[in-house]
């Protein structure tokens, strides 16, 4: 479908070699690595990266997953209150956690004893997965989900942890997973943004660290995430100027093309000029197709209800989940949705009241996520869509003790959190890795952020050691110098 959209200049012998062209146009010496990767795999379509860096391309090996929807539980979901049920916590409720380093969480002065989960758990699905009462919809999908219970990260503070899970580095300034993936694979659709990010639309703020969480770092800027505007037009400059209709704009565009062609005759060898002419035609088409993709009102009533668009509690997240499905259906490569805004009560960051906080945010997300999985599955899209769900870290099994005895919250915990994935070639019903008895630290088959990233890339057909970008003298990778694929969760 979208291949018709890609400009082809193969006829010109001067640019037969992409590698040369990349150099010549200053497209970025960094991308040479990608050109190598592609040559190695003898991609048949031979997209010209310099002319269209977002042209779709294959990874290193065949894969089921073509696109990603990442549901980000911002602020840090508590593993022991969600997907990592710990009966021992009930037994040890109120007891001191021996040997606990008070600097583990964010508040070193508010260290209390172990606290059991306030939620009831039941075993569900063929796989017998323990599910908390706050996920009445997701419960139907546990046999499609693969859980990694032994995830850990390296910092106890929101923004470095957000940077780490998104970019692999706790420091600012590195490309995020979505950027690496679109850099590696391009985008099936040329009429829609390849990498879309949606954050809280209720005015509760952006995740800590803001746009750097979906930034392209040193990769070319086109690979950065397009954050949809929370209100108004989702993307800038999508609608025609108010004084123009279609005919008038078409005429103007035709003039641009004609005048550009006159100029191009002087420099017939400058493929960049031709690419730019083509980009106006692409823009013209995007102007038509993108608003359609964002228009959830076009969905049947049944679907809208299933996601919860009529449910005040979750309609905001439901709308985003539905937009995500429409985007991957239409060929966007990577979609990330943040549940919750900034820290504390505006996100999953339940420092004061884990029960109230997690009940609220589960209420905002459970139905839409359940619906998204159902919807993807019934459309046959679940196989090609990798759904990922996690936060930037987990939470401590102990209570965050404050003067106010009514406050029963949990502080940050970098040592353990659970990630689940579904679809996209994932082995449903798997449980990989374990935390210790009380869910404090990942203990068995520990999975670091680099491992998580390596696994995501693998599911998309990319060898994480081969996806590199040359920047200031070094071939950078998403996984830096580490990363092991968690093969056990792959079907």
């Amino acid at each position, binding site marked *: 479908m979208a291949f018709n959209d890609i400009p082809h200049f193969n006829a010109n012998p001067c640019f037969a070699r992409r590698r040369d062209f990349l150099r*010549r146009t*200053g497209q970025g010496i960094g991308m040479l690595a990608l050109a190598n990767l592609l040559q190695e795999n003898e991609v048949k379509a031979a997209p010209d990266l310099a002319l269209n860096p977002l042209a779709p391309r294959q990874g290193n090996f065949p894969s089921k997953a073509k696109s990603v929807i990442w549901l980000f539980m911002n602020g840090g979901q508590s593993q022991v209150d969600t997907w990592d049920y710990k009966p021992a916590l009930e037994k040890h409720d109120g007891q001191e956690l021996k040997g606990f380093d008070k600097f583990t969480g964010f508040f070193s002065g508010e260290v209390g004893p172990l606290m059991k989960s306030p939620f009831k758990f039941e075993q569900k699905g063929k796989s017998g997965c323990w599910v908390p009462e706050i996920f009445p919809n997701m419960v139907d999908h546990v046999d499609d989900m693969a859980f990694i219970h032994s995830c850990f990260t390296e910092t106890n503070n929101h923004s470095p942890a957000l940077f780490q899970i998104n970019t692999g580095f706790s420091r600012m*300034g590195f490309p995020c997973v979505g950027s690496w993936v679109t850099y590696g694979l391009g985008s099936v659709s040329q009429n829609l943004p390849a990498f879309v990010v949606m954050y809280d639309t209720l005015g509760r703020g952006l995740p800590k660290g803001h746009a750097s969480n979906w930034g392209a770092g040193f990769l070319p800027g086109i690979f950065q995430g397009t954050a949809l505007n929370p209100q108004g037009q989702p993307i800038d400059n999508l609608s025609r100027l108010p004084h123009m209709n279609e005919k008038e704009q078409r005429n103007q565009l035709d003039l641009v093309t*004609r005048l550009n062609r006159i100029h*191009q005759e002087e420099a017939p060898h400058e493929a960049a000029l031709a690419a730019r002419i083509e980009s106006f035609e692409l823009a013209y088409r995007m102007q038509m197709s993108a608003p359609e993709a964002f228009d959830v009102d076009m969905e049947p009533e049944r679907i809208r209800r299933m996601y919860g668009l009529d449910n005040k509690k979750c309609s905001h997240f439901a709308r985003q989940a539905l937009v995500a499905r429409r985007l991957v259906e239409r060929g966007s490569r990577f979609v990330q949705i943040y549940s919750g805004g900034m820290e504390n009560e505006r996100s999953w960051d339940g420092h004061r009241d884990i029960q109230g906080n997690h009940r609220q945010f589960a209420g905002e997300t459970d139905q839409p996520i359940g619906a998204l999985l159902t919807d993807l599955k019934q459309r046959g899209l679940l196989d090609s869509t990798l759904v990922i769900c996690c936060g930037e870290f987990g939470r401590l099994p102990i209570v965050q003790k404050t003067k106010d005895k009514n406050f029963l919250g949990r502080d940050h915990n970098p040592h353990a959190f659970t990630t689940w994935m579904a679809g996209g070639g994932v082995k449903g019903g798997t449980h990989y890795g374990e935390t210790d008895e009380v869910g404090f630290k990942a203990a068995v088959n520990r999975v670091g952020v680099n491992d998580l990233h390596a696994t995501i890339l693998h599911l998309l057909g990319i060898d994480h050691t081969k996806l590199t970008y040359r920047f200031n003298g070094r071939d950078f990778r998403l996984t830096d110098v580490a990363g092991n694929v968690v093969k056990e969760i792959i079907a």
Partner: protein
Amino acid sequence: MKKITTLSVFLFASFAIAGEADDFAFFESKVRPILIDHCYSCHAKDAKKIRGELLLDSKEGWMKGGESGQIIIPGNPEKSLFVKVLSYNDTIQMPPKGKLADKDIAILTEWVKRGAPDPRKGSAPAIAAKKIDYESAKKYWAWQPLKKVAPPKLKDQSWCKTPIDHFLKFNMEAKGITPNPIADKTKLIRRAHLDLLGIPPTPEEVETFLKDKSDDAYSRMVDRLLQNPHYGERWGRHWLDVARFAESHGYEQDYDRPNAYHYRDFVIKALNQDLPYDTFIKWQLAGDEYEPSNPLAMMATGFLAAGTHATQITASQAEKERYDELDDIVRTVGTTMLGLTIACARCHDHKFDPISATDYYRMASTFSTTVRSDYDLNLSTGNYAQEKAEFDAGKKKLEEARANWERDNLSAKLEAWVKAGAKDAPQSDFLFAEVKSAVAKNGTSLGILSNGIITATGKNPDFENYTITLHSNTNHVTALRLEALRDASLVKGGPGRAPNGNFALSDFKVTVNPFDSKKNLTTPQPVKLKSVRSSFDQKGLPASATIDKDKKSSWAIDPQFGKDHQVVYELEKALDLPHGAEWVITLDFNGNNQHNIGKLRVTFSSMDKPALAVTPVPEKTLAALEKLKAGQKLAASEITDLGMWYRTKDTDWQKLNKAVDDFIAKEPKPKMVKALISSEGVPAVRLHTQGADFYDPVHILKRGDLNQKVSVASIGFPQVLMKSSDAEKHWITKAPEGSKTSYRRKSLAEWITDTEQGAGMLLARVIVNRVWHYHFGRGIVATPSDFGVQGEKPSNPELLDWLASEFIHKGWKLKELHKLIMTSAAYMQSSSVDEPRLLKDRENNLVWHFQSRRLEAEIIRDSMLAVSGTLDATPFGPGTLDPNHKRRSIYFFVKRSKLIPMMMLFDAPDSLQDLALRPTTTIAPQALLMMNSSIVRGYADALAARVAKDAGESLEARIQRAYQLVLSRNAKSLELKEGIEFLKEQEGFYKADKKPESLALADFCQALFSLNEFVFLD
């Protein structure tokens, strides 16, 4: 005795042997299988990849230890890293795949406890931690001294204009390729303007240039452009790319750096003034050490401060964050100035270049005590000193006149007044007493002024307590008043010392100790305060909070800054103190960090409902009057006190005094400005940091891991760029006595600019190449920030060395370098290409044609502003986030979380790391912007209005004018035809609109902005 000893040794030895057999069996049956199963895959000689330089498949292996040093201390499991890592409580956790079963851990622990008996005899070959061979490394071209080269001789030098062309043509001749002829003059003027100034020439400039037929017309045009102030704004932006310049901290909150723009202005000014490049570099590294009294040199240090900075640092993360921050500085200095990827050596020696981790940490130590600071700079010029001296002399004269009058007249007049009945004696609702002492608990310096006012200066601790002791003669006290007073030296005029001028007074407590008739103290007693009245209360922070029981609740005054504030405390019971009393007042500031009062006074009232804001009078003046009235004799000091008050009633004195006051009002003020700088011994910008600002000394870290400090890193420079390994002594300067800074950065700056023995030659090569890169679209070294082994090789090393030598020789002058390059045939040639030559040199390594390329984001926008006649050329000062502003794009405020969408669309940098090569992408959203953005449309509207005004009604004249403005040339006949047709059609479409004609013309102008020709440098 001796025998026994021998015997016992023997006994023990035999015991040991017996035990050894057991232990070996234990090893073979229990320990070895665990090692094989869980450790050998990474720690055996035949492992695919040996990790951590550690072998566990022989006794010798573990005895040697690994990267982290000794791992087993036989007999002591607690101290053995080997055991610690098994517990998964250490930063290193082994095996990495998952914790061992408890029983296995118990076995290995037991083994170490037994003394780690190990029968394995195998050898452990040294795992080569590669040593860098500096002597052979120095043979690499980039670390070599500059070669003395002369321009080569050519077969045919007719094309050549400068020695540059000789170097290039020589290689072209060898490859049998011919360069292009010189481009036509319309192209040349547009090229030069866009390249040097970043805006196109005006039609008038084009016309003048075309008419100028003299030989040096082009060269004079280049000279003219180099004097144009837009030059600094265009080329300054290039430097800001590599300096990762931004005006916010990044990370969590991305707080603004409101004073960071001074660095941007420094760069622009330095370029416009043609500051020698070596000085440019020296100031950015250590301007505060070279020229502390030169504001421009101070502002230059903003370079070191420009990187990101975590704004929410927990105590446990602080040191790691600091090492990250040093890494940002070392990395940026390395790549930006030296094309050296030093930061690759943070975790281990550089994989490709001869830079050791030790080099890295020694260089990092240069900056160990350097912090970013918002610092007051005095921008006053030389005139100020002179004006101030004149002012001081004038003021002195007037003050003398007043003093003379007082000396000659005051006592007589006072006497006469008393004799006449002392009418109109001074009075006030409040009196001030003598301040005996004012002490602060946590380090604030409190000063006492003669009018009872207390000032707080120096350290401003987070929380503070002031204790003020007063001796008062007022014998009936109904109320106390606290004045918090404004002062120009405080932020926003105060009265608080908080970063916004506010204060938060949490408690006001009073104790009184009456004097007896002999002026002896009696018994101190607390004074109960009944009610409060205040001039202003910040919402939720009322003055009443200062006498409630809550120790944190406070009185504050945001947003009423820069005003005097008062609060009156009425006593629960009025006090009668016939002989006066000692009063002790305590003020507690517990409400908010650093919210202490900067200037205050406490006064007393005898009245029932004293007014709030009245000027108090001194008690002693009143006392003197009382004595006088009672016919008592006054002491000399009392006469003076009285006189001080009395003089204010005299019209002659008033005149003299007014002359002094009027004169003082005209005092020349130093021009002070706050700038974000980097220095040492200055208050650091802290934000929400729980840890220290810096950690001194810096340590060499193993694998970049804070938990593996190897040793203290002393200042040093990369060895490959020094004559010998300890040659750093050559540049290291001791800080002079009393210096706030360590002079380590100055030492670094001396080394980096030293062309004889230091890195100066590389410094020159790198900048010369950068300038070449920006002029030609591709450097002689195509990786301008990486001159290392991994970088591209120079396409013409002789030319590079020749340019660098010339550059140094001519005094590091960038403008001369521009001129040299821009007057070459290589630069002036046309951009046309053809297949035969492309096949020979597709990458244009030989520079046989000018490389046409898309302009940068800033230049596209600035050009639209310029040609539409709406550009506001005001330079310098704070930037803005407003996308509609009309100044040049370099004056956008660079907020890391709110980058300007239009700039980002056209590949502007994200300012997180230094960027030498901007990518050039072509994507549909760029086209959408040109088509649909109201901002671009605004430029098109303005251009259309300008065109209509300049060209009149004729469509042809309009199109010509638009072409001249936008593309610096006339429209060709085909273009004219297309344009006229379009204008007519569009006008027809808009028939129903009010102004179809101007809509159509604006549509046309907008179309011109969308043209390739407009956004390409050609």
